[in-house]
């Protein structure tokens, strides 16, 4: 089953790369026009096209690129004329750092709040935590970011710019990236928390929980030992979805906090029609989704003895 899922994943990625390629082709203009902007003349645009092979037909360029990728070569960035890997590696590292950082804050908070909310269902605590989380998710990310800057950066507690690089020491990275991580935490917590709450409440309605209650098990233990293990599947799925979102969808937060991550790279790639960069980042994003979903499925399977011992 795992092999089949992986093969399907690879096929998805290839189809996706074709789709992305066609979309970037469909956009008006090309790299030559984009980097010359207002200074373009027919002569200098033609010269750049010749130099970079942009005058070749689109399908030739796509197949050339695909051939390279299958051999592990993602090609060169058209604009920088440097290998893509060089360009992406530091940014991928930054993005993964921010994702993990946020996950370390957000996932425990979301799970604990979700469990507590299901334990004290319909209490004031439940309502307040729900309202707070929903308000945070309802505000646009950039606004949450600016509010964070207003309260924590202008007063001098935390820096407003998370401009980290490969040489930044780990602790300083944690300090520099605190505000973006906090902003993203506010953005993703609600979804995970509410799913935890809903999944546990769902399980709490089942007869075996009633049995446990009749046995006299404490309600706290009912949730952690009886309900949670059976609610893991939906929770893990939502956590995976949110982690994938943290990898792929944070470009606005990156811009607000001047964080050099992958999202910004992709936006610049699209802006300058740098197809290989767009393709490579899109593949990373898609792999993150495919991979994390696969992982979530594996964890839910393991968590469910009925699925594990199917045969």
């Amino acid at each position: 089953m795992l092999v089949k899922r992986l093969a399907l994943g690879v096929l998805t990625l290839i189809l996706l790369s074709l789709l992305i390629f066609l979309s970037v082709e469909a956009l008006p203009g090309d790299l030559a026009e984009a980097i010359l902007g207002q200074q373009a003349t027919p002569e200098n645009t033609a010269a750049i096209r010749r130099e970079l092979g942009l005058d070749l037909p689109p399908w030739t360029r796509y197949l050339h690129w695909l051939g390279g990728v299958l051999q592990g070569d993602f090609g060169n960035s058209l604009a920088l004329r440097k290998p893509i890997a060089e360009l992406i590696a530091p940014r991928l590292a930054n993005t993964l750092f921010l994702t993990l950082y946020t996950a370390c804050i957000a996932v425990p908070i979301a799970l604990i709040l979700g469990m507590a909310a299901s334990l004290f269902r319909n209490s004031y605590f439940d309502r307040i935590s729900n309202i707070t989380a929903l308000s945070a998710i309802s505000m646009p990310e950039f606004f949450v970011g600016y509010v964070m800057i207003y309260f924590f950066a202008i007063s001098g507690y935390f820096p407003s710019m998370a401009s980290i690089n490969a040489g930044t020491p780990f602790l300083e990275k944690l300090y520099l990236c605190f505000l973006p991580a906090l902003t993203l935490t506010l953005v993703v917590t609600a979804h995970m928390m509410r799913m935890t709450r809903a999944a546990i409440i769902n399980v709490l309605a089942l007869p075996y929980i009633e049995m446990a209650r009749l046995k006299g098990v404490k309600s706290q233990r009912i949730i952690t030992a009886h309900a949670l293990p059976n609610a893991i599947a939906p929770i893990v799925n939502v956590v995976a979805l949110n982690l994938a979102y943290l990898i792929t969808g944070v470009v606005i937060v990156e811009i607000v906090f001047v964080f050099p991550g992958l999202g910004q790279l992709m936006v610049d790639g699209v802006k300058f029609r740098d197809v290989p960069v767009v393709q490579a980042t899109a593949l990373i994003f898609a792999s993150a989704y495919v991979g994390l979903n696969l992982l979530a499925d594996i964890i839910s399977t393991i968590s469910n003895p009925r699925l594990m011992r199917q045969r």
Partner: protein
Amino acid sequence: MSNTNNPKYAISNEVAHGETKAKAQHLQADFMAGAISRRDFISTALALGVSLGGATAVVKQAQAATPKSGGRLRQGITGGATSDVLDPGQILDAYMINVCMGQLRPCMTKIMPDGSTEGDICSGWQASNGGKTWKFDVRKGVEFHNGKDLTSNDVVDSIRHHLGEDSGSGGSGVVAGIKTIKTDGKHGVIIELKEGDGDLPTLLSDYHLNICPSNGEGGIDWQSGIGAGPYQLVEHNPGVRTLTKKFANYWNTGNEAWFDEVETLGIGDPTARLSALATNAVDAINSVPPKTAARLKNMRDVQTLISTGNKQATMPMLCDVKPFDDINVRNALKYIINRQEMLDKVFFGYGELGNDNPIGPANIFRATTDELPQRAYDPERAKHYLQKAGLSKLSVQFHAADTGFPGAVDAGALMRESAKAAGIDIEVIREPNDGYWSNVWMVKPWSACFWSGRPTENWMFSQVYLSTADWNDTHWKNDRFDMLLRAGKAETNQAKRRDIYVEMQQIVHEDGGLALPVFQSDIMGYRTSMHVPDQIANNWELDGHHACRRWWQV
């Protein structure tokens, strides 16, 4: 533009007139010139009867006026992108102009704060043959960051990088007039032009024309970022951060470039730039949106810097497309623009009124208001021109996007309202920012555009308003104008040149397809820990992108 944080204090005002006053004046002059020490100055001043506070004020003043070496200049700049290469032909925006031209690789010439052109890599030049043949003297003793001497060979290869059919350079338009360029010994460069041009030295200050080391094969080494500039490259992370450090053997050390290090950060988001300045994460930022400039004034330890140069918001009409092919229609449209309202509402007052003339505040031969009266909002006059065109009403489309100029769509909306009084119906079409320069500008008959302006009249006119120019964005053809442009180029008598350029400005104003409502100010911010000269250059933002050379840390 002056800043007011530097009040002048004279100790001679404190003492009685007569001999003591003269002594006090001399004393202060000697001290300011560095002839006597601070201790001597204070003790002598006290002996003359000057208060301690007064003497200290002068010392502070002197400290502020004397350049101080050291420290790091941290700039937060727009226009950085992950696709930023060090190739001088592909410099596109403020970030790379600042890093390449300002810090790493100066050009042959540079523009001074007063708008004049001075030699940078070149120490001097002579023109002959009616401005067709030019000899440039390459400064002796200039060293590249790798220790190599800079010679005429490097200069020739650097300029050739932008010449010829195979050059994908954005600067190819600037050097299009060059026929041949060759070396003349180790320290001479001879340039032959297709036709005479008295502005060549100024042209050569263009930010694309960085002087890079020759690679020995007729090309240049731009990849390493090596140049002969005051700062050498330590780290370049495209679109994110560039760190440079003082080049120990910089030829002009002692006269400029006081910082030990310059850190340039790409901050595209205006709010992020402002908060970086407010939280002391950077020392200077460019491109403060007019909307938020007032906020800057309320920040502690932060000063606003405003310079109005030639940056212009324009609305070019294609003169070969109906109805803009009729001069009366063009004139009618020029009269329905309420320029003052546009300046106040779209640009929040930061700028100057435009007069449908691309020659702006940073040009020397700009026509005075007597020579070229300011065009004002006048719907009656617009109606009169419509009648002359044989029309009772007019419907046109104006294509705009913020890429054209910031606020272009709003400007269009204001224009639509003010045009109603003349019975003109303007439909404002919002275009996507993406691909604007290829699909809208010079394609749609009436669109929004901006020019950062050019330091010389001739340059601006021959790049955009000459009938055969690549960027003739009004498709305008006026024989008298073209003839005058050629005459002005070859003319060496300044008074006659002025007459020619003024007449050309009148022609563009009367006949051209250009509506130019506003010259936009550059609004910048800096922390008071920086010393900023009283006069800053207005050819580019951040003191002509030479802040790293002309500013210092107090």
